[in-house]
């Protein structure tokens, strides 16, 4: 059977997730791996919104905030199981995205940027200021997901770091599978069409407003679930999760790695998650280098790191 790009991507991902732990010298690497996967998951939403549909959002961390705080609050106030709190967060995020997206997705380019930025800032402001509910800027504790204990009862003992590594890895695989399905599907093609030429997409019958909204809602759900996972993994969350810099980080990860491709975006998430860990010996220069990397990649590798590198390799092969 011929290996489709979709299957190939999933196989590469699965192999990476399953095999890299063989080389981990300590438990800390599981933590970094899990962070990459969770960031990768939130970035997959940006692949749909920005990579496929070409729309810019500078406020997606707002949805991560909703997902994270759903897991902090719903178990305590509603008695919901944390796993169901993830779903609740996703539903709230989807509804918010639908309400917010309808008016703002009419805007283009920078105007869409500032409108989504406004949304993100509003969410982080509410999380900071409504102390009675969220305990304010110092953050709030998040209950345990409980899945690790369940696995232990079933005879599978995993350290906390290991559990989150594999759990978020599986979530990432599922998320990637969905985004890859979309790529060559009728809806995915229509999204990419409106990216290429909105006016032409409309003349072939694409309901641009509806489709942008759908992409916005799906990407919001991705950000929300990733926010939930991050909160549950850290057992603690602060309003920073919804902050402007986190929104920028999500977009940068996707675009830096290659927003048009699933593997590229996850690669970007990996690079930006690893960078501060690698640069600790140059802590003073971390900001300087991060800024330089962002500029250089965008100037010299417009399609993102992974697609550009792959093209180089292929070019040499021929």
């Amino acid at each position, binding site marked *: 059977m011929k290996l489709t790009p979709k299957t190939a991507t999933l196989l590469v991902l699965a192999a990476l997730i399953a095999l890299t732990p063989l080389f981990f*010298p*300590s*438990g*800390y*690497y599981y*933590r*970094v791996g899990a*962070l990459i996967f969770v960031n990768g998951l939130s970035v997959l939403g940006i692949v749909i919104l920005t990579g496929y549909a070409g729309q810019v959002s500078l406020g997606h961390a707002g949805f991560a905030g909703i997902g994270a705080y759903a897991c902090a609050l719903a178990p305590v106030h509603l008695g919901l199981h944390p796993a169901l709190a993830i779903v609740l967060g996703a539903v709230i995020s989807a509804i918010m995205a639908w309400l917010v997206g309808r008016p703002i997705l009419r805007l283009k380019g920078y105007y869409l940027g500032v409108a989504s930025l406004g949304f993100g800032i509003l969410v982080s402001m509410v999380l*900071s*200021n409504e*102390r009675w509910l969220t305990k*304010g*800027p*110092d*953050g709030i*504790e998040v209950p345990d997901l409980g899945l690790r204990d369940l696995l232990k009862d079933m005879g599978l003992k995993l350290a*906390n*770091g290991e559990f989150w590594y594999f759990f978020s890895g599986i979530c990432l695989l599922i998320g990637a599978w969905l985004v890859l399905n979309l790529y060559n599907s009728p809806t995915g093609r229509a999204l990419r069409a409106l990216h290429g030429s909105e006016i032409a997409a409309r003349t072939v019958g694409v309901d641009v407003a509806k489709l942008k909204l759908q992409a916005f809602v799906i990407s919001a759900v991705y950000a929300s679930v990733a926010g939930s996972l*991050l909160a549950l993994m*850290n*057992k*603690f*969350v*602060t309003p*920073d*999760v919804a902050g402007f810099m986190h929104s920028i980080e999500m977009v940068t990860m996707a675009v830096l790695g290659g927003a048009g491709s699933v593997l590229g975006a996850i690669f970007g998430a990996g690079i930006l998650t690893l960078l*501060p*860990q690698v640069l*600790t*010996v*140059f*802590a*003073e*220069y*971390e*900001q300087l280098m991060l800024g330089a990397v962002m500029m250089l990649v965008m100037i010299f590798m417009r399609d993102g790191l992974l697609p550009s590198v792959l093209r180089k390799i292929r070019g040499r092969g021929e």
Partner: protein
Amino acid sequence: MKTLTTTALGTLMALGLATAAMADIKIGATVSATGPASFLGDPEAKTLEMLVEELNAAGGINGEKVELVLYDDGGDPNKARTFATRLVEDDEVVAIIGGSTTGTTMSIISVAEDAEVPFISLAGAVEIIEPVKPFTFKTPHTDRMACEKIFEDMQKRGFTKVGMISGTDGFGASMQAQCKSVVGNYGIEIVADETYDPKDADMTAQLTNIKGADGIQAVLNPGFGQGPSIVTRNYKQLAIDLPLYQSHGVASDGFIELAGADAAEGVRLPGTALLIADILPEDDAQKPVVTAYKAAFEAKTGTPVGTFGGYAHDAFLILKDAITRAGSAEPAAIRDAIEATSGLVGTTGVYTMSPENHLGLDLSAFRMLEIKGGKWTIVE
């Protein structure tokens, strides 16, 4: 550019030294040396580096050298947790100092507790040590203690109606909440409660409302960074002639400089002995400690010493004292020794820990200071 090269060289040399001298005791730290909380984390990082250098020059602890593994979490709780994991799992340190902010501290706690490694936080919130967690300690006074100290002073001056203007950052918001929760104990009522964003340029709108509040007698401004300086200047601009209280968040000479001696005249705040090292009476127990730290820090960094660097100083002191007494660098032994800390004189106060008290300071560690003629003075 010159600074750049020197720093680069310094870093390389430090790296070389670190690998050359295999240290025996590894102590980990993650502080917010950059980012929005950098004026907490920056002096903390510099203090820790300085103290480790001093200690090793003097022969280390129990004859063993100390190696400091220091990370900058940029004030991001998520990064702080990752670094804490790295310190515990990869660097295999025997104790962690850090968490410049309450947010970063709270996300480190469960890592330290799970790994059973002692952790001394440098952040203010009372939640860090209440309820007591076996491996978690802290050196700064709690926000609540600062509120209590201030309200005590207000009560003495006979104030019953006061206004508050707080920063919306973690420090300001947390102290605002703590103050509101204890204010009733002092028969004081909060008649105006305003906030500002830490990056705001002008607070006269909020202060105008406070000025107009019925029967108001004094104003309290919990916050750190440039906000309180702007509040103090706007206060003067609006000619509000009520006593103004600042928090320990701005307890450093830098505050007087930024607010201007003129505007800061008469401002009171709960500070530590560190700020008044030179005017402390000779018989004060803290005099030698604070004088030595102040001299060393200011000589090394060229910047005035502040309360926050003092927190790191004390954390390191407690750790050094505990390892010395334990005669072992095993995390569990260090933990037990920290809990048995007694009468240890630091820059912030005198620490006496117990299984029920993982802070070990009382209100007497705070001194009510007043700015007079551009200098700190002690309010008797």
